[in-house]
């Protein structure tokens, strides 16, 4: 009854939703027959056991289930068959039936599928009994299974055979090993099973209507591991050593892979081979393996498989450095290189991204296996250039990403950028990037330098470097950089600014060359970039000046060594370029820095010239009040430190400076600048200026301005305004008083103290901070009195209490 309904189901036709129902019915059928089978087993009724087991197995004759569902049904049957197998074993051991007889008996089952399942099961027992050599039984079984040509059923049947035979292969160390030749038999068995299974699997593709092709592909995918398992078994056979793999196993597998002409199978199986067999085998059979690639179907995505192989071997090399010599011995790089070349040639329509991905894998491989062979690395880049040549700049973003990966790999590997700079093809690859990506790559390069704190120390290397990062240095021809985010632009340029400090050589001659090279490039940057790059160059140059201080600077000419004078010429040129931005405040600061440096080099004319430039900027370009205040203090501060000027030059400059100070917009600012100027006329150094007259003049002028400020405050606001300025001036008086400036005497100070006191008491609004300032100043005077000695004496004359 069960058989009949099974048969009926076999022939019926229905939709996919019915599958659940059919599966349920199938499982029910299995369970029902299993029940009767168990009853037969319990009563040692062999005949009935065979009958019901055959019926149970008949459920597997169905054509209506998808692979996924068939598998469920199969597993039910499989579990039951295990019990049957145990029964068979008992029966034959007891002697109630010989295994040979049993083997013959099961072949009487009506339908071929149940018959073969039973046969395999008995076969397992037969091998275990050792009444016949394993190889003979296995050979018989693998042949017999040809009886099922239906792909799905055949695959599962053979999978069953594979499962039960797994532990019974005549391998070395196995109890079933026969003579010395039996390894071959084991291998042959598995290979046969594999080949037949693959054929069945491929045949599935051509079953059914064309419109269901996609569905079939999906179903085939679900079954692929059944086929692949055989390769796994092969890899586990102890007796399969490298030689056997090389001579027999691999060639046979590849033969099947190529001949089946099915792209799904080819991709999967190639991948399987790579995953399942050890890396050292792959290394030793590289030629064979690679020669299969061009023979595969054109629709097969060879690049992915090739990449996987290379990546696997890359990892192998990385994890076990001791195998590196082997790589060299088998000439792995050359083989891969050629293979890739052939693949690319064979597929002229391959999209760029595909080709570049291959090169990325090859490059990764090369960097891991042959890091010292820069020529190999360059070769890979060169091959890539060749593929890209003739095409316009890349627009495919995935291809671009791959190129960035290609170019970043050497940077990461070689922490010293100089190595990457030696790759002649590196810039040529970069040429194919679009402008935006060129800049991205440039930033990557700079970051690599900064991260590794590499110093680049020759001008030709720097020239090469600037060529690579030219996207950041200047506007590229087709650039429409208006869309560029301001923040991003700043970051870019700041990274270039930082980079400049990594360009250094201890040898002054070379360093000068470096400065010239950098200058040449950054001057191409245009107004947008100069404010970022010029300061870095200037300070780098000033550092060199300091190192060369003391060397003669009067000779000009080509072959003369680096001198401060030469560098000052470069500095002058460089800072001048800021006028096109325009950036007068920055330029002023830089001119003043140069002036100080020139002072330290005893170059009076040069220092004077820098001051001139600074003053011109102050007069003509700096109009903002706040900017003027800062600028004037910088001028005063710098000038105060100048020791090199002769009287005339000095007078001109101080005169101008005090003039500017008095002309600042707000009176308090004027006052402060003017009293700051007092320091221009007094140095502690006895070789320097000590002009007490001029000091006093300044302080008095400051007082006048402070007075005027007070009056103005009175007039406009009614209150007398802050006395802070007076207290500041008082402090300055004390400063020079202490220094011993003869023109500053205690009466002037006393008057000032009284003035402040009066003003304070007049003030309607008390100002705590001013009061505190005054108190602490008076406290200072008292403290100085305590000091005793000449200081104490001098201060003694000042009365702080009213």
């Amino acid at each position, binding site marked *: 009854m069960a058989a009949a309904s099974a048969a009926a189901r076999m022939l019926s036709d229905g939709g996919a939703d019915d599958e659940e129902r059919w599966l349920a019915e199938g499982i029910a059928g299995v369970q029902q027959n299993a029940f009767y089978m168990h009853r037969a087993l319990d009563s040692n009724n062999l005949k009935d056991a065979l009958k019901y087991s055959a019926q149970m197995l008949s459920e597997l004759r169905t054509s209506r289930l998808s692979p996924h569902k068939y598998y469920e049904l199969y597993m039910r049957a499989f579990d039951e068959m295990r019990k049957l197998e145990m029964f068979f074993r008992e029966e034959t051991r007891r002697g109630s039936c010989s295994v040979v007889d049993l083997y013959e008996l099961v072949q009487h089952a009506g339908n071929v599928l149940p018959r073969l399942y039973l046969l395999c099961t008995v076969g397992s027992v037969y091998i275990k009994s050792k009444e016949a050599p394993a190889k003979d039984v296995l050979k018989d079984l693998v042949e017999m299974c040809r009886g099922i040509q239906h792909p799905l059923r055949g695959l599962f049947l053979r999978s069953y055979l594979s499962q039960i035979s797994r532990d019974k292969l005549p391998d070395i160390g196995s109890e079933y090993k026969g003579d010395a030749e039996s390894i071959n038999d084991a291998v042959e068995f598995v290979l046969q099973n594999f080949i037949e299974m693959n054929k069945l699997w491929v045949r599935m593709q051509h079953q059914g209507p064309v419109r269901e092709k996609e569905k079939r592909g999906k179903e085939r995918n679900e079954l692929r591991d059944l086929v692949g398992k055989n390769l796994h078994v092969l890899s586990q056979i102890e007796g399969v050593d490298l030689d056997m793999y090389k001579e027999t196993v691999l060639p046979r597998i590849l033969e099947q892979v190529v001949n089946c002409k099915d792209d799904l199978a080819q991709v999967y199986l190639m991948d399987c081979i790579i995953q399942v067999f050890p890396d050292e085998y792959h290394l030793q059979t590289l030629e064979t393996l690679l020669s299969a690639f061009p023979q595969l179907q054109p629709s097969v995505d060879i690049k992915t498989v090739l990449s996987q192989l290379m990546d696997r071997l890359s990892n192998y090399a990385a994890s076990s450095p001791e195998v590196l010599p082997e790589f060299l011995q088998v000439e792995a790089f050359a083989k891969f290189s050629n293979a890739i070349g052939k693949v690319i040639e064979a597929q002229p329509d391959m999209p760029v991204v595909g080709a570049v991905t291959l090169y990325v894998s090859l490059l990764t491989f090369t960097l891991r296996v042959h890091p010292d062979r820069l020529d190999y690395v360059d070769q890979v880049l060169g091959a890539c250039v060749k593929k890209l040549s003739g095409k316009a700049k890349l627009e495919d973003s995935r291809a671009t990403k791959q190129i960035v990966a290609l170019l970043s790999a050497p940077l990461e590997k070689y922490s010293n950028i100089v190595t990457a700079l030696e790759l002649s093809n590196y810039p040529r690859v970069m040429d194919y990037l679009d402008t935006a990506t060129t800049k991205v790559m440039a930033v990557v390069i700079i970051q690599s330098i900064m991260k590794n704190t590499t110093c680049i120390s020759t001008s030709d290397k720097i020239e090469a470097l600037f060529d690579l990062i030219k996207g950041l240095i200047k506007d590229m021809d087709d650039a429409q950089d208006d869309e560029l985010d301001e923040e991003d632009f700043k970051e870019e340029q700041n990274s270039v600014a930082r980079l400049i400090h990594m360009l250094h050589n201890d040898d002054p001659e070379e360093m000068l060359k470096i400065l010239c090279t950098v200058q040449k490039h950054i001057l191409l940057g245009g107004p947008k970039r100069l404010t970022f790059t010029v300061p870095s160059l200037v300070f780098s140059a000033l550092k060199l000046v300091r190192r060369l201080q003391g060397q003669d600077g009067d000779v000009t000419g080509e072959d003369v060594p680096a001198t401060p004078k030469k560098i000052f010429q470069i500095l002058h040129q460089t800072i001048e370029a800021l006028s096109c931005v325009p950036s007068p405040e920055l330029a002023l600061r830089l001119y003043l820095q140069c002036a100080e440096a020139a002072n330290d080099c005893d170059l009076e004319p040069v220092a004077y010239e820098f001051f001139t430039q600074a003053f011109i900027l102050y007069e003509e370009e700096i109009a903002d009040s706040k900017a003027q205040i800062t600028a004037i203090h910088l001028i005063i501060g710098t000038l105060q430190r100048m020791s090199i000027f002769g009287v005339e030059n000095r007078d001109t400059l101080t005169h101008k400076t005090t003039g500017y100070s008095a002309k600042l917009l707000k009176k308090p600012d004027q006052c402060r600048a003017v009293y700051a100027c007092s320091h221009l006329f007094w140095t502690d150094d006895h070789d320097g200026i000590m002009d007490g007259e001029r000091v006093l003049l300044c302080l008095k002028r400051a007082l006048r301005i402070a007075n005027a400020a007070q009056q103005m405050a009175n007039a406009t606001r009614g209150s007398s305004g802050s006395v802070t300025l007076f207290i500041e001036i008082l402090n300055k008086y004390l400063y020079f008083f202490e220094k011993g400036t003869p023109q500053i005497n205690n009466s002037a100070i006393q008057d000032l103290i009284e003035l402040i006191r009066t003003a304070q008491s007049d003030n309607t609004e008390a100002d705590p901070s001013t009061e505190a*300032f005054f108190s602490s100043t008076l406290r200072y005077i008292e403290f100085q009195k305590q000091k005793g000695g000449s200081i104490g004496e001098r201060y003694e004359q000042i009365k702080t209490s009213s």
Partner: protein
Amino acid sequence: MVLVLALGDLHIPHRAPDLPAKFKSMLVPGKIQHIICTGNLCIKEVHDYLKSLCPDLHITRGEYDEDARYPETKTLTIGQFKLGLCHGHQVVPWGDLDSLAMLQRQLDVDILVTGHTHQFKAYKHEGGVVINPGSATGAYSSITYDVNPSFVLMDIDGLRVVVYVYELIDGEVKVDKIDFKKTATTTMHA
């Protein structure tokens, strides 16, 4: 115990590419309560980095700072101490201790932190203490030759402040410390 980091004159990117690696590894977020910075960072990235170390960040304007909005001077109170901050290019002669003392009186602070010369100084005078943390990157200075990277960490505890100065000399970080105590009045003594 309040930790205050004082540093400045980094001059990134004009004169130095970055803080020394050894300093960077020492300066971790969450350990410091306040940062006072004399100025000349010079760019926003440095500001953001300092802010990541400690959110309570005080900066005064240096003449090369990108952000023109930093104040010329700043005063703040930490524990029992009043601190004043100023870059120092505004005080002429540069680095002159008497002139700086005047600024200190004017700001009415116990501790004046100032920079510009790129040279570490911790100087006590009648009116208080003047501290110059030097240049954290060892940047070029027209005033000081052979600048070693340095910064200062102040440990303020009640009426006592311990000033630790960290200097990078020949690749090694050297630490020195100076103690200052303040009496109940505003005068300070070492």
